[in-house]
Structures are given as structure tokens and as C-alpha cells.
């Protein structure tokens, strides 16, 4: 009773079909929609959500959750802007310290979950408020400045592709490789699929958790850097509610909230679906307030599809 390709990947296929529907709607309603300019813009926006989503995906795959992503992005935008302070000599220092900040936050999360046996929900929920609190105690107004060449990267191209999109594609390929080809990846799926079995099989669950939570937070820090690249300043508004968008994208893409199941291609679909939705709303001149409503509905639809699939 092997399930067919279509049954197995039903959610992913539906997600991509929906994207296609959005594209068709967009094309019929606006001449600007199907332009190279708009499409590359959508891709660039997708890279922002997608970078954070790929990290979150790994956490959800081991049946964990990271609610702190939005707050961490916010903190990283501010920290990197302050460190860079418009000076091109500071770029490398700012970038590595920001990524280091992400790494430490992830390690702390994993430490609390591993060694103190706290639930990922509690740890990262607390972290959401703590990181946000630190950010807002630093500033409530835009602060710091990106250096000019760092800012220029936003519109720069490699081989005709925007640097940001290029980076995102590399990240996707790396993530696919990590999850499908490496032992680390196999162990991620095993831990999410059945924790006690993973332990009994001699997998070091703690080590995998350290790896997964730090990668997730490092990718959130990277998202913060991408935002600095786009905004040029450390804007404390960035990152508000991002964690929910990220989780929705991951789940729409067919990742089980109970862990053990999910693919990079699926999550990419989820990210694109959300980004196209937002883009279409702008192009059609619909109020952004509807965005949340629509995303919520898509979310519910995705989860109920999961349920039907597992019956």
C-alpha cells in the first residue's frame, strides 16, 4: 500500500498550484504584475522571510518551536547598524559579531532545553520578550547606519541575479543537502519522528538540538543583516510579528508541527505563497489589513489538509 507520489506530496503540490493561481490572478489584474521587475522584487522579499523560515523549519522538524525569531531579527538589525555606524571598515566586524550574537542566543536556547529540561515553547516565548525588551531599551527610534557599500549590496547583482536572491538560492541548496544527505539531517528527522527511538539508537539528541537551535538563530541574525542592507538604518519596527509569518510559512509548506516530516521545497512553497499574497494585495490596492486574515485562513486550510492526509 505504498502511497503514490501525488498522495505523498499532496500539500506541496496544492501550495504550488495556489501560487500559480495567484500568478494568473495577478497577471490578469495588473500589467505590472508579470514584469521581471516585480517578480524579482517578490523573490527578494521571499529571501527575507525564507532565510528565517528555513531555520525555523529545522527547529519544527525536531518537534520544537522557536518563537523568538522576530525579536532576534529586530535586535540584530539594531546591533549591526550600531556596530557598523556607516564605516566601511566596520562591515566585517559588524557582520561577524551579529552572527555571533545569533549563535549565542541559539546556544542559550538549546542549553535551557537540553540541560534544564525546559520546553522549547517556554524558553523561546520568554526569549521573544527578553530580546524585544533589550531592543526597545536600546532605542525606540531608528538608530545607527549601514555603510554605503553594504547598502549597495541590496541592488547589486551577481551573474544577473540580485545578490540577495543568489544568497537565498545557495542557502536553499545547502539546506537541502544538509537535511537529505547528511547524518545530521537524518538525525533531525529521526528525533522529530520519535524521540525515544532516536535516543535508544544512540543518537546524541542534545548535540543535534544545539546544532538546530543555533542554526535557526544564526539564520535569524542573517535575516537581520539582510534588513539592514535594505533599510540602511537600525529600525526597531523590523521583526514585529515575523515569528508568526515564519511559522505559518513552514507549516503551509507541509512541515508537521509534531516534527519528523517536512521538506525544503515545501517550505519554499509556503514562503512564496505568503510573499505572493502580500505582493498581490499591494498590486490590487487591497488594504494590508486583509493580509493577516488571508494568511490565517491559508494556515487553517494547510493544517486541516495535514489532518486529512494523515487519516
Amino acid at each position, binding site marked *: *500500500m*505504498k*502511497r503514490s507520489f501525488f498522495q505523498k506530496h499532496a500539500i506541496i503540490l496544492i501550495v504550488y498550484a495556489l501560487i500559480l493561481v495567484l500568478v494568473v490572478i495577478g497577471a490578469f489584474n495588473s500589467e505590472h504584475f508579470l514584469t521581471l521587475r516585480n517578480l524579482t522584487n517578490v523573490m527578494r522579499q521571499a529571501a527575507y522571510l525564507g532565510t528565517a523560515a528555513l531555520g525555523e523549519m529545522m527547529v519544527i522538524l525536531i518537534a520544537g518551536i522557536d518563537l523568538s525569531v522576530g525579536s532576534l531579527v529586530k535586535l540584530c538589525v539594531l546591533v549591526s547598524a550600531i556596530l557598523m555606524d556607516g564605516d566601511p571598515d566596520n562591515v566585517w566586524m559588524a557582520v561577524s559579531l551579529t552572527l555571533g550574537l545569533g549563535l549565542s542566543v541559539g546556544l542559550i536556547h538549546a542549553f535551557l532545553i537540553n540541560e534544564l529540561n525546559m520546553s522549547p515553547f517556554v524558553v523561546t516565548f520568554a526569549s521573544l520578550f527578553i530580546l524585544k525588551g533589550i531592543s526597545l531599551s536600546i532605542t525606540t527610534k531608528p538608530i545607527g547606519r549601514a555603510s554605503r557599500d553594504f547598502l549597495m549590496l541590496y541592488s547589486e547583482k551577481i551573474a544577473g541575479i540580485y545578490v540577495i536572491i543568489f544568497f537565498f538560492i545557495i542557502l536553499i541548496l545547502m539546506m537541502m543537502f544538509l537535511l537529505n*544527505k*547528511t*547524518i*545530521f*539531517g*537524518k*538525525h533531525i*528527522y*529521526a528525533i*522529530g*519522528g*520519535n524521540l*525515544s*527511538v*532516536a535516543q*535508544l*539508537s*544512540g*543518537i546524541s539528541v542534545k548535540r543535534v538540538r544545539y546544532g538546530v537551535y543555533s542554526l535557526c538563530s544564526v539564520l535569524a541574525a542573517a535575516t537581520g543583516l539582510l534588513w539592514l542592507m535594505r533599510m540602511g538604518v537600525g529600525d526597531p519596527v523590523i521583526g514585529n510579528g515575523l515569528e508568526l509569518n515564519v511559522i505559518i510559512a513552514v507549516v503551509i509548506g507541509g512541515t508537521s508541527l509534531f516534527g*519528523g*516530516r517536512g521538506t525544503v521545497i515545501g517550505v519554499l512553497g509556503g514562503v512564496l505563497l505568503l510573499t505572493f499574497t502580500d505582493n498581490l494585495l499591494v498590486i490590487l490596492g487591497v488594504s494590508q489589513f486583509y493580509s493577516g486574515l488571508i494568511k490565517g485562513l491559508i494556515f487553517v486550510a494547510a493544517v486541516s489538509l495535514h489532518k486529512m492526509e494523515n487519516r
Partner: protein
Amino acid sequence: MRESQNPYILEMRNIFKSFGGVNALRDVSFQCRPGTVHALVGENGAGKSTLIKILAGALLPDSGEIIFKGQKHQSFSTRKALNSGISVIYQELALVSQMTVAENIFLGREPRKYFGIVDKKRLKIEAKKLLKQLGFEVDMDMEVGEMTVAYQQMVEIAKALSKNADLIIMDEPSAILAGHELDQLFLIIESLKKRGVTIIYISHRLEEVFRIANEVTILKDGQLVGTKPIKDLSRGELVKMMVGRTLEEVFPVSFNQLGNPVIQVEEISTKTILNQVSFNLREGEILGVAGMVGSGRTELARAIFGADPLTSGTIKIKGQDVVFKNPADAIRSKISLVPEDRKYHGLFTKLSILNNITLPILSKISRWGFTDKKKENEIVERERQIHSIDMTSGNQEVQYLSGGNQQKVVLSKSLQTIPEVIIMDEPTRGVDVGAKFEIYQLIRQLNKDGIAILMISSELPEILGLSDRILVMREGKIVAELTPNETNEEMIIEFATTNTQQSVP
């Protein structure tokens, strides 16, 4: 020097283990010969699982030695046990259902190319080879969750072989298997034996022990009763060693005072599997229902209890036609169900004993929506005495009770509504022999009080020992009606299995 001529592959010597002052194991020693099947039997709580966990490295003994393959170990870690060639196949299979057969077999020991990259090709080839040795050909890319339990168990065995296990411990492997699957398991055990693999086989079902074991070690209350070659033992002797009670005493005698029919079932069918089933159940009767898993036994219980709608046929209660739209209707007609899986369908495991028992009659014992605590306590105290439930207080959470005591709570709960008919689905599953005896006595007592009982069970000794009449089901139909003193286990199995289509996963 002596160690090298050791005739045993495994020796456990003077193992002690206690948990918070309670002795789980006291001075247990036993030996296994290589290439044999060694059965480990005893009631629940006898110390089997503690012993196994020590052997698997999951628990440390307080004192004692393990000598495995001539090497002395003070204690084991999980890794050490694995590396020296001990594999445990737990009752809850240790498989990740979302992963493929091949991935599961090599989980945690994936063949690698370089850096941390999995060699997928080798993974599949090796896995296929292993399963072929066991006589199984399955798609290596199939997810384990899509296979039948029997196949999953084969994957577990393949996993053990892939670790070059010399000793495989099987913890109640038959509990999840149907009849023909069990035969397959036994064939595999035979072939493992031929390859020199030693097997420690834990089972509640003594028939199996007699079928495959070479030797048997009996534990009781954390102490060793003895190790004997199986051929020196009769079934009765083995039971006596396990419980200190003879077989005849296990089943209390029937009272045999049958009254008028309480339920008359006429040609009922359901969408599930039932096909024109008819029978009647009389006052004070115990009607046993035998059959393989999937023969429609549980579906019969559900249909009578109003959980599945009938597509045709009628049910009469005391001569009156009734239609049950849901279980609440059935309960109102004084029918009670003791479901098969108490943890999921019978109990609120995280609630107290008191809350569980009084739940069905809350409206009766409360006033203006407030429950009468005093009355509740009285009820629980009364139930504790009647059913000899072993508990600290009525506020104890059910999850902390042993299987036998949980089952007594389920029974007590279902009796609160003062039913006239009780449907019991596997009343003694996962219950140790001592508690079984108490449950049998309770069933008899209910029977004496005039309650009609429909008892579904996979344990044929139970069916034969308790029932006044026996129905055998197969493929949704009743294929035989027998009286216990004119039949035996072989005959029932014959009826239950003939013409059964072999199911293919």
C-alpha cells in the same frame, strides 16, 4: 581459563536492584546457553522488565555481575550493551514511522561516505541484504509507518542483526501479532537460532513459551523461582511456579443458572465488517466471543453498544426492539462496555481513582450541580473493598496504578450505572496472572448476581475457563457456537482461521 570454557553466553549473577526502598530484584541469577531460546516469565511486577533494562544498559544494578561472552561487566551502558552485541526489541517498536525501512535499520549507524554524508546506496543494499536473510522482500523506500506491525517487527529484527547482535531480547513480541504473523515470527526465531543467535523471549502467553523455548526462567516478586528446561515442565507446573497457585484454582466454577434472554441480536450487519450476526445472551450467562484480531469481535461490541450504526438487522432488549443511536442510549438501556484499550477508551489516566469511578453517576450523587464529596468517598471505599483495588487513596491518579488495578477501576466504573449487560473487550489484557485471577472471580460474582456478560478475548484458556457458551467469529460472521466442555483450544483456532485470507501488506 574457566571463563573461556563457559557454556553460557550470558550469566547474570546476584543482581540486586531497588527503587526508593522497594526491592525490584533480589539476588537474581540466571544463565543462557548460546543458540537457544530462553523464555523469561513472571507476573507483571515480577521484575522481568527491570532485569531486561539492566541487561540493555538502561538501568544500573545496585550490585551483581553480568558476564557476557566471557567478559565480566560491573554495569552496562546502552552503548556498551549495543556494542557488545545485545539488542532489545521492545514492545513499543523502536522505529521512526516517517522514515524508510533502510533508514530505520541503520538509524544512528548510517554508513557514511566522507564528512557527515550518508552513503544512501550502501544503506539500501545492506538493508536489503539483511531483510533477505530473514526471508523478506520489501521496498526499501517504503516508510515504516505504512507497513503492518508484523513487518515492522521484521525491520526491528533486521536492525538487531545489523548490529551483529549475539543476544536478542524480545519483550512480548506476540502481543501485537495476529495468528499467522506469529508463525512467521517463530520461523524467524528458528533461523536465528540456527545462526547461533541467542534469544531471550518474554511473554505472557505460556502456549508460546512451550512452543519455542528451550529453557525457561521464572521470576516472582523480584526473586528467582528457578530455571528449567521446558521439556521438564507441564503447563500446570509452570503456572504454579509463576503464581504459586494451580491452574484449576485460576478459573472459579460456573454457577450455571441461566435466565431469560436479555439481548437478542438478529442478523445485524454494519458498514464495518459485521455480516448477518445473530445470537442471544441470557441472564446470568457468560458468553465468550473468540476469533482472530480483525474477525469482527470488537466491531460486534461497538455495534451492540451503539457506537457503530447498523445497516440491517435488529436488537431486542428483554423482547423489546431497540435502536441505539449512540452509546448513551445503550447505557440508558443498562448496557455497559469495558473497552479493549483502557488507556485510551476506558480511563482518564490523569484523573484520580475517585473521579474515574464516580464519573458515570455524577448526576445521581450531586445536588444543584455540586458533587457530594462524602458520598463519593464512600463509593470509592466500597469499591476498593469489593474489588480489592490496591491504592493509597481515592485521590491517587489512575496512571500510577498497575495494569491489573487499572482494570479493576475500569470494571468498577462500568458497574456504577448498575448494568444488566456488560460487554467486556479483552478484560485481562496487560494484566498479570494474580490480578487476572481476581478479575475472573469478579466476573463470576457479577454473573452470580444475574448480570449477563459478553466477553471478548484472545486468550483461549480464559474463554474456555469462564464461558457458558462460546461464539467463534471469522470475517464478520459467527462461524461456530460451542460449549466449553465439548471443545478445546485447537478446535476454536480451527474455526477461527480456516479459509482466512492471508493478508498482504
